[in-house]
């Protein structure tokens, strides 16, 4: 990124951390966590330990990071190299990202920037100017993306509460600051589980690996009475609702399932993952040594805040996660798609000089769709 863009973002981010430090959620057991940060145009600094709020504040002021991270794990020695940290336990975390949902709308709001000639276009396969296929893609997620992600979050919460006995108020949902949500689970029985066990949890949540027997179907002489009932708890109940549709159709559908046979039943199950499984990124949940974007910090991919969602249904990231100031700045914008921030419409801009509020300028500069003029 160019010097003047970096300077602008650094100043803006610094001001944010000065004005909005209260948004930052210092995790409990702060001194047992590993912190890390990145600066604009440079690598990651991690294995940092911090005593409390004050030290964190100092770190943010001194370094003006582009991104700040904190571990979900607690260690005896968070500042030592990985294998000497002495892992104790880790909060259970889930990542739901609109880009993993394969939504139809995605192509409508994806912009590609050519790595060869810098041309910006809405053509996602090859550069419309030089035909290069080395494209960097930027997405400006739409309402549908956000709503679909929210839907996955509620599927997940539902499973966590009903099947895993997690308390509703131990589930904290954050907007990631870019295209999705991070779901944190505190005080659960899962704190001490290792990666392999967590990976089993993700398979469960995603509805992966189910076998016909679990849903009453046997290879030989299947028995109607072992098929799930409409009102059962857990996956058998969710299966019923999806596959039978309505209570009245149960009997007819069971007959069909039995007639179609075992391997067809297995296929049905495999296809169900996509529909009823919650679409989480399993690698994130499995990783018990990862550092995650700190709640309340800015995401340098968007200039938006990773913000706590008090009411997920009403939550609108383009209003509630935009905290940068409104001071006008002049930028050269090259953003062929219109976007909405803080109830204001911006764009489309075609390589033009515009004077817009800082929060909108930062959004585009972070997405590499504008530069300070």
């Amino acid at each position, binding site marked *: 990124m160019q010097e003047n863009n970096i300077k602008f973002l650094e100043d803006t981010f610094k001001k944010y951390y000065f004005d909005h430090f209260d948004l930052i959620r210092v995790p409990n057991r702060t001194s047992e966590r590993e912190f890390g940060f990145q600066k604009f145009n440079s690598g990651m600094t991690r294995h940092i330990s911090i005593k409390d709020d004050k030290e964190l504040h100092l770190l943010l002021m001194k370094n003006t990071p582009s991104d700040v991270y904190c571990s979900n794990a607690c260690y005896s020695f968070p500042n030592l190299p*990985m294998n000497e940290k002495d892992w104790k336990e880790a909060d259970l975390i889930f990542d739901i990202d609109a880009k993993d949902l394969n939504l139809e709308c995605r192509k409508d709001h994806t912009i590609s920037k050519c790595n060869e000639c810098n041309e910006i276009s809405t053509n996602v396969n090859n550069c419309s100017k030089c035909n290069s296929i080395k494209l960097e893609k930027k997405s400006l997620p739409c309402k549908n993306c956000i709503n679909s992600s929210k839907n996955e979050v509620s599927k997940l919460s539902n499973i966590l509460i009903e099947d895993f006995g997690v308390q509703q108020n131990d589930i904290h949902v954050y907007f990631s600051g870019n295209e999705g949500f991070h779901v944190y689970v505190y005080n659960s029985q899962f704190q001490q589980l290792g990666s392999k066990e967590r990976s*089993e949890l993700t398979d469960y949540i995603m509805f992966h*690996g189910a076998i016909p027997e*679990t849903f009453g179907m046997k290879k030989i002489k299947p028995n109607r009475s072992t098929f799930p009932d409409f009102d059962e*708890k857990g996956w058998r109940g969710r299966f019923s609702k999806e596959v039978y549709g309505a209570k009245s159709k149960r009997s007819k559908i069971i007959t069909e399932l039995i007639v179609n046979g075992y391997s067809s039943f297995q296929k049905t199950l495999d296809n169900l993952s996509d529909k009823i499984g919650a679409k989480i990124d399993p690698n994130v949940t499995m990783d018990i040594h990862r550092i995650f974007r700190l709640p309340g910090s800015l995401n340098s991919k968007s200039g938006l805040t990773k913000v706590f969602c008090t009411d997920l249904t009403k939550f609108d990231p383009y209003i509630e996660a935009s905290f940068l100031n409104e001071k006008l700045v002049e930028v050269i914008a090259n953003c062929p798609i219109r976007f909405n921030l803080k109830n204001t419409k911006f764009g489309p801009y075609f390589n033009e000089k515009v004077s817009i509020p800082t929060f909108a300028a930062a959004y585009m500069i972070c997405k590499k769709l504008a530069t300070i003029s």
Partner: protein
Amino acid sequence: MLELGADEYAKYPFMADAGQYLKDKGFPLVKFGTDPDLKPSVEKAFHRLKVSTEGGIYKSELIDGQASKSYILEIEVFSFLLAIVLIKLTGMHTLTKRFALAEARRAEQHLERDLGKASDKSKVDLAIKIIHDLFGIEVIKRDDFFEIPVADYLKHSVSFHEREWKLINRYVKDGKVLLTPEKTVRLIRKELGTYIGSKIINAPTPPMIPGFENMVNELISICKKLTPSYTMTTGEYPPCIKHAIEVLEKGENLPHSGRFMLAAFLLSKGQSVEEIAPLFKNAPDYNQRITLYQLNHLAGTSGSGTQYSCPSCEKLKTQNLCFAIPECDNIINPIQFGKKRI
């Protein structure tokens, strides 16, 4: 520890502290070598061990977990404790392993039966308490099922490969997994064996007891005939690995997953990073520094410090890296290839 009745000791003799138990009963070890009245216990111990070396479980004289005569009870408990003494005297590790396994299986049968006893609450409670005290698992009986916290279930079941043990194929509700008595006990089978094994390993080795010499010698010779169950490496690499090496040798591109498999496989066979690195030389995108870095990372000598293990056959199948041949039957990971089960 638990307060156990005599019948319970007969069913779960590993719950007793061997030396202490005999002492409390007033039987010094040496007496077992000479006293004809105590001979049946010693013979039983020997028999118990021998059966375990053959992979069997000896037939106890308990009827439905109960001893009809008090001397039967004594023989049951004593023979277990004496078997440990005999094992210690032979110093054979195979014997420890086989005996622990056989005894675990035996205890499993009792636990399963006790857990399933709808009528006798005290038996159920005892079984539950044993599971709790030994393995720290909180089991709750609910109708015909046992509820186990999901986290505990996962800790014990992750090493099982059958798909029916995947959490998704269990009845899960309110943070608990529901299991039948049989499955509950199966869940801790390995730990039960480990527990009994560790009891034996930690027991002190007494000086040779006069009268035991013949039995000890016979057991040693039995053990020497038993080769460990996995031996005879043919030295052949499995087809998936051979294929990966061929691809690299031809200078063709092997996907990242294939390189990962190959490196993890060879590392687990004891090859060093330096030995493995040249294999990747022909790869179209070879870069010595990066290769070494990645290999060290895999080997756990840098980065997170965890050594990565070779992916399972199932995983490799999904990555199109598997080229199974008949010799691949019954193995779940390429590193098992070529080891014959005897």
